[in-house]
C-alpha cells in the first residue's frame, strides 16, 4: 500500500521534476562549469580535455575582478535597479492604498486594471516610450521649448538614462502594487480610527501605523522589482544611449557578439548571486521586522 502510494506520488511529480532538471537545473550547472573554462578559438568553449589536461581555471573570474570597468557597470546596474525600486514604491503606494480602501466590489476590477498592462508584450511597452519620448513628439518639443526659453541647449529625451529609468519603472510597477495591495488589504481600519481618536494627524497615522505595518509588502515588492530590473537588457538596448549599458547588455554581448562564454557565465553568476542576496536580505528583514515586539503587537491588534 505504502509502495503504491509512493509510486503514485512519483508518477505525478516525476515528469515535471525530470523536465525541469533537464531544461533548468542542468543548463544552470553547465553555465557554472562554463565559467571555469577557457573561451574557444572561434567563440564558445575550448575543448574540456586537451593533451591530457582538464580545462578548468579561474581566469574569467580574475578578469572580472581585475578590470574595473565591469565592477563599474555592475554598480551602475545596481543603481538603476535601486532607483527603479524606489520610484515604483512611490507610484505604487497610493495605487495600492486606494484599491485596498475602495469598496469590495470594485477592488478586483481596480487590481485587474493594474495587472492588464503587465500582460501586454514587453517590447510593445518599450516601444510606447520610444514614441512618447521621440524627438518629434509633443513631450520633447514642449520640454525643449521651455529649455530654449531659459537659453538652454535642447536635450534629447530618447536614448538617454532618463528614458531607461522611466521605462524600467513602467515595466516593473505592477510587481510593486500586487504585494503592497495584498498587505494593505489586511489592515484593520480600527487601528487608524483609534489613532485619530487619540489625536494623531493624518501624516502621523500614516508614518506610525500604516507604513510600518505595510513593510512586509514593501520588502516583497522591492525584491520583485529589484531582481528582474537588475538583469534587464532590452530597455537600455532600445531606449538608452551608449553610456547606459547595464550588466544585462554586457552578458548579451558576451554570448552573442564576442562569444566569450566563460566570461559571460561569470557575469551571469555574479548577477545570480546578487539577485539571491537581495531576495534573501528582503526575506530576512521582513522576518526580523515581524518578530520585533512592537510590530508583533501591531499585527496581533
Amino acid at each position, binding site marked *: 500500500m505504502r509502495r503504491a502510494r509512493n509510486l503514485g506520488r512519483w508518477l*505525478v511529480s516525476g515528469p515535471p*521534476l525530470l523536465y525541469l532538471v533537464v531544461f533548468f537545473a542542468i543548463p544552470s550547472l553547465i553555465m557554472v562549469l562554463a565559467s571555469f573554462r577557457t573561451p574557444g578559438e572561434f567563440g564558445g568553449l575550448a575543448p574540456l580535455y586537451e593533451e591530457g589536461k582538464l580545462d578548468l581555471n579561474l581566469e574569467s573570474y580574475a578578469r572580472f575582478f581585475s578590470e574595473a570597468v565591469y565592477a563599474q557597470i555592475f554598480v551602475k546596474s545596481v543603481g538603476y535597479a535601486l532607483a527603479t525600486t524606489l520610484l515604483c514604491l512611490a*507610484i505604487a503606494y497610493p495605487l495600492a492604498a486606494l484599491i485596498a*480602501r475602495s469598496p469590495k466590489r470594485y477592488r478586483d476590477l481596480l487590481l485587474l486594471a493594474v495587472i492588464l498592462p503587465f*500582460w501586454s508584450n514587453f517590447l510593445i511597452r518599450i516601444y510606447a516610450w520610444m*514614441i512618447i519620448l521621440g524627438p518629434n513628439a509633443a513631450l520633447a518639443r514642449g520640454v525643449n521649448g521651455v529649455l530654449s526659453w531659459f537659453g538652454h541647449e535642447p536635450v534629447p529625451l530618447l536614448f538617454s538614462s532618463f528614458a531607461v529609468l522611466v521605462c524600467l519603472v*513602467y515595466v516593473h510597477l505592477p510587481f510593486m502594487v500586487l504585494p503592497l495591495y495584498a498587505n494593505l488589504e489586511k489592515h484593520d481600519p480600527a487601528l487608524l480610527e483609534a489613532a485619530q481618536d487619540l489625536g494623531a494627524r493624518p501624516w502621523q497615522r500614516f508614518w506610525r501605523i500604516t507604513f510600518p505595518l505595510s513593510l512586509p509588502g514593501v520588502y516583497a515588492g522591492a525584491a520583485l522589482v529589484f531582481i528582474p530590473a537588475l538583469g534587464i*537588457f532590452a530597455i537600455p538596448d532600445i531606449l538608452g544611449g551608449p553610456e547606459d549599458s547595464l550588466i544585462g547588455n554586457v552578458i548579451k554581448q558576451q554570448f552573442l557578439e564576442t562569444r566569450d562564454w566563460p566570461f559571460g557565465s561569470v557575469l*551571469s553568476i555574479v548577477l545570480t548571486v546578487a*539577485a539571491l542576496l537581495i531576495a534573501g536580505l528582503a526575506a530576512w528583514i521582513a522576518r526580523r521586522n515581524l518578530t520585533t515586539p512592537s510590530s508583533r503587537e501591531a499585527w496581533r491588534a
Partner: protein
Amino acid sequence: MPRKRRAWLWLAAAFGYAFLYVPLVIVIVYSFNDSRLNAEWVGFTLNWYRTLFHDNDMIVAAGNSLFIAAVASLVSTILGTAAGVAMHRHPSRLLSVLVLSPIAIPEILMGVSLLIFFVLLNFTLGLVSVALAHIAFCIGFVAIVVRARLAGMDESLTEAARDCGAKPWQAFRYVTLPLIMPGVIAGALMAFTLSIDDFVITFFTAGAGTVTLPLQIYSMIKIAVTPEVNAVSSLLMLLTLALIIIASKVSPSLLRSQEELAK
C-alpha cells in the same frame, strides 16, 4: 479632513493609472494614423494594417509564434498540472525550488544557460529549442494557478471516491480533474500568452534563422519606428487581452493566484 486626504490619494492613484495606460493607448491610436511619423495626429487610415497583412516576414513570424505557443502551452499545461497537484499533496522543497526558480530569477539567466546547453548538445537552435525553453518557464505559472485551485477544493471528495473503490487514476480523472479544470484552462491560456509574448528567452534560444513576433518587432524598432509596428502591437495586445479575459472568466481565482505569485 479625511475628504481632503482622500482627494490626494485619488489624484496620486489617477496619475498611476494614467502612467500605466497612456503609453499603450498612444501605440493603438497611432496605428490608425495617416503619417509615417509617430509624432502627431494627421488623419485616420487602415493602411498600416493593410501593410501588415502583406508583410511576408511578419506573417512567417506570427505563424512561428502561434506554433511555439500552441506546443508550449499544451506540454506545460500537462506538466504544470502534475506539478501543481504534486506541490499541493506532497509538498517538497526540491519541487518548489525547481518549479518556482525559473519565474523568480532574471529571465536573461535562463536564456543564456539554455543557449549554452543547446549548443553544447549540438541541438539546432530553432522552433523546437524555443518551444522547449518556453515549456520550462511556463510550468511554474500553470502549477501556481492549479495549486491555488486545489487549495480551494474539498479534498474529502477525492477521498470519498477512493473509499468507494476508485483507483487513484480514476479518482483523479473523474473527481479531481473536473473540479480543477477551470484552473487548468486558465493556466493553459496564461502559458499561451506568456509564450507568445516572450522576448528575452526566445532571443537567446531562437538562433539566427528563426523569427517570432517579438523578435520581429525587436528588429523593426532597432532599425526604424514605423506605424506598422503599432499595428502589429495593437493586434497582439487585443489577442492577449482576449486570452486573459477568457482566462479570468473561466477561473475567477486567477487574480488571486497572481497575488499569490507576488508573494
